[in-house]
């Protein structure tokens, strides 16, 4: 019945702040400052959340965006360029994609 609850209340976007380290292919170990889980969200919300994160984080900090919306996953690297930040990696897993972004260049 979780879908019924999601239908009435909406699935929440969760933004967690516990810093943790992940190893990114081609980048190495990176400390993730924030993790944004927006599974189920469709355009343009993942994009808007990305902008919000880039605004809130300090220069050099990394955040992770978890999305299952293919169109957003395609757009976010271009968006990150416009925001003068760096797209580190996009990792595919069973749920969707984890996109790692560092504020600044």
């Amino acid at each position, binding site marked *: 019945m979780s879908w019924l609850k999601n239908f009435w209340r909406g699935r929440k976007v969760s933004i967690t702040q516990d810093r943790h380290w992940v190893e*990114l292919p081609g980048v190495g170990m990176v400390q993730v400052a924030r993790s944004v889980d927006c599974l189920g969200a469709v355009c*343009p919300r993942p994009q*808007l959340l990305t902008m919000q994160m880039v605004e809130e984080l300090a220069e050099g900090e990394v955040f992770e965006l978890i999305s299952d919306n293919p169109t957003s996953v395609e757009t976010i*690297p*271009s968006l990150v360029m*416009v925001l003068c930040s760096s797209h580190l*990696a996009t*990792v*595919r897993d069973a749920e969707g994609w984890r996109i790692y972004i560092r504020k600044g*260049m």
Partner: protein
Amino acid sequence: MSNEGSAVDVVMKREGWLAQAGNRYAAGIMGLILLGSLWALSIDTRYVYLLVYVWFGMVYGMFLQYGRFCMAAAVRDLFAVGVPRMAVGMMIAVALYSLIAATVTVGGFSTFHSNALGWHIVLGGLIFGFGIVFTGGCASGSLYKAGEGNVGSMLVIVAISFSQAIFVSAGTWFDGLLPSAWIESAAAKDMPAELSVTQGWFDIFTAGYVWDLKGATLAQILGTTNPFVSSYLVNTLLVTLLPTLAILVLLYAVYYKKGYLRRAKISAPALGDHARGMWSMFTSSKNTAIAGIGLGIFAGLQMWVTGALREHYQIYNFGELLSAMGHTDGLSIQETVFDPGYWYITTQEAQWGGWILEKLGVNMTDNIFFGLDNGLPNPLLNAPGFMSIGIILGAAMLALSRREFKWKLPSMETAVFALVGGTLMGLGARIGMGCNIGAFFATVTNGDPSGWVYLFGMTIGGYLGVKAFNMWIERRSSQQDECEL
């Protein structure tokens, strides 16, 4: 991508292509399409005309899914997030389609008809552009997203279908608000009584207003007769390529230049730096650029194939083939059905909605849209309708095989947005004579400047839609600590 991140897949790949469930499903869909095609051809080889729509639809669906080619994003993302990715992809498709369309026209196989130019194009584009911000996809975008398993997008298709069907046939309560000159002009058109063209706002709008307007390609307006000059120089170069180039330069200057120069650490850019910057903008999403190239080429080829088939069967419209095969139900009083011969989305969806309402006992043929122009064929014989189904299936196949297919149920908010936005898209599509494909993409590429007018309206609508959408999000997030979906 120039500020490269890597894309990695951490899900284990199993051996063999068919070992993956998604690939098996995709192969199954392909098999069903092949079997269905063979079955149709075994009944009557003339169904090849209908199957051309299916197969091109399938190719469009694959390219749309491959490039995540969301044309709603072409307008929305500029204003919402300042990203020109989709607008650039769209312009690439426009440029290529126009070149092939010119060749098809010179070859004598063009199926294109111009749209009447008037204020209704701006207004229709505006309403459509406002709607797509809320549905999260244009008419084609909703089809390919439905193929990815997005139930919200399926609701958008339902809303577009029924809203159009109701708008074009609905009652008379609204008629009093229309200019009496339109009613007089409609009455003077000497139309068959069963169409009752002086009743129903869409009939009065069509017969009393749109029919009095002119629609033409620029070559027709200028009266050029040489086919090469009128197709390549006037219609393609002047109407399509130069405006496309101007838009691309504008997109670069407004949205891309600053970030590019900063990234490339160029402080005093020369012309060559800007050229490299433009190239970087084109290739910032390779998938989108490839999809734009593919869609442009195949959209042109579809006109050529359908034009050649019309020549082969000596027909002007699929309605003639349907009557010859004994299917006279659902033809218009001119014995025609909707049969554009090129990529088009909204009219066939209106026919789906109209056909269902007719079966429920509503009289849907006493109007110009269905009764005179487009007919109301059984969905199983609706050739352009199969193009839409082809888009869904093509997108589903590719999404399954890339493991991107996922059933996604909408939240109530998304569902309401889908239905309200889809209804606005249906209304805008009928007032503006099509969606961003039929009224913009297919028109500007064939030398009809009215498509740019539609895009102008759609851009304003998109801008207003983004403003309204942001206001809604702010309102929601001020109510709750956490942003809800």
